[in-house]
């Protein structure tokens, strides 16, 4: 078999980059070293020691994610939105007549497996409840808007896998999903905008204590984080389902897996 030139090129590139990366490794602090610059630096130390004072959120990752680096997270939500829109823009096309009819027939005739449907009927509410818990409890345990949103989206994907895409789209249509994804970003960015209107910087949750009842500046940060996590969850949930719906139907939103 002849060796393709592209493989030789790839091998060369890989060897070059690999040796470059390995050459720098002697320089790194040892793995797991608590005193490495990254681990004991001012920034990490500040986050770990100050988070309880400045935000009152026990989960440091959530606090950094939604507050200190909240702007990153907002754009991360926008990344998801862009991905969903991009997939729609690239692949979405009106379903052609034949595939629509085929899907109709399939929906009528498909042998609905009793075990699958019953299991899903029992399982999906529990999954969604767990997702809501993950979103709401992100301050105190691992989790937050992304994880909860993905789980919520996955519950809809499960529904589509078992009951068919058509039946699921009747419950959670494409328009609704797009609307909810926009609403999610608006919740996040709108929170930031309200902060600006109240005199703070963009996403400076501290000023929100003027409108949130029973809060002081520090608790306002904690509460605002929950608000933006809910926004993230909206977007992630709807876009995850939308991505699945478009990809599994080749853009026609009919049939599916």
């Amino acid at each position, binding site marked *: 078999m002849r060796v393709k030139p592209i493989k030789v090129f790839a091998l060369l590139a890989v060897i070059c980059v690999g040796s470059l990366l390995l050459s720098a490794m002697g320089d790194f602090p040892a793995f797991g070293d608590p005193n490495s610059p990254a681990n004991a630096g001012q920034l990490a130390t500040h986050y770990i020691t100050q988070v309880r004072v400045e935000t009152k959120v026990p989960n440091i990752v959530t606090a950094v*994610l939604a507050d200190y680096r909240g702007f990153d997270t907002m754009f991360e939500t926008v990344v998801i939105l862009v991905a969903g829109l991009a997939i729609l823009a690239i692949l979405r096309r009106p379903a052609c007549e034949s595939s629509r009819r085929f899907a109709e027939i399939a929906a009528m005739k498909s042998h609905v497996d009793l075990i699958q449907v019953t299991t899903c009927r029992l399982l999906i509410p529990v999954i969604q409840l767990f997702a809501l818990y993950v979103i709401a409890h992100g301050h105190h345990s691992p989790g937050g808007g992304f*994880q909860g949103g993905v789980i919520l989206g*996955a519950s809809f*994907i499960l529904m589509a896998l078992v009951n068919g895409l058509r039946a699921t789209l009747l419950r959670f249509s494409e328009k609704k999903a797009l609307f909810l994804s926009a609403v999610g970003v608006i919740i996040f960015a709108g929170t930031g905008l309200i902060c600006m209107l109240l005199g703070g910087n963009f996403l400076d949750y501290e000023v929100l204590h003027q409108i949130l009842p029973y809060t002081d500046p520090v608790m306002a940060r904690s509460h605002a984080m929950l608000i933006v996590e809910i926004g993230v969850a909206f977007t992630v949930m709807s876009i*995850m389902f939308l991505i699945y719906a478009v*990809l*599994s139907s080749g853009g026609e939103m009919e049939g599916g897996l």
Partner: protein
Amino acid sequence: MILTFDTVALILLVITAIMALKIRDLLGASVVLGIYGFLMCLLWADMGAVDVAFTEAAVGAGVSTVILIATVYQTTRHSKD
């Protein structure tokens, strides 16, 4: 000892990565990639990155496998390499 679990997981990661690329059946490759994602998730949980592990479990092992399989279903299952 924590190092041993790490080591085993890392070796398995390399094996699954190579397997995912070697298998010619794309459906199988997607599933092996799901395993790869899940091993990653275990490794990160072990390193104390619980949030990252949680996300990877939901995204890497869950959603990306599903959308890969959806695409394989829509295109073709056979791969020439």
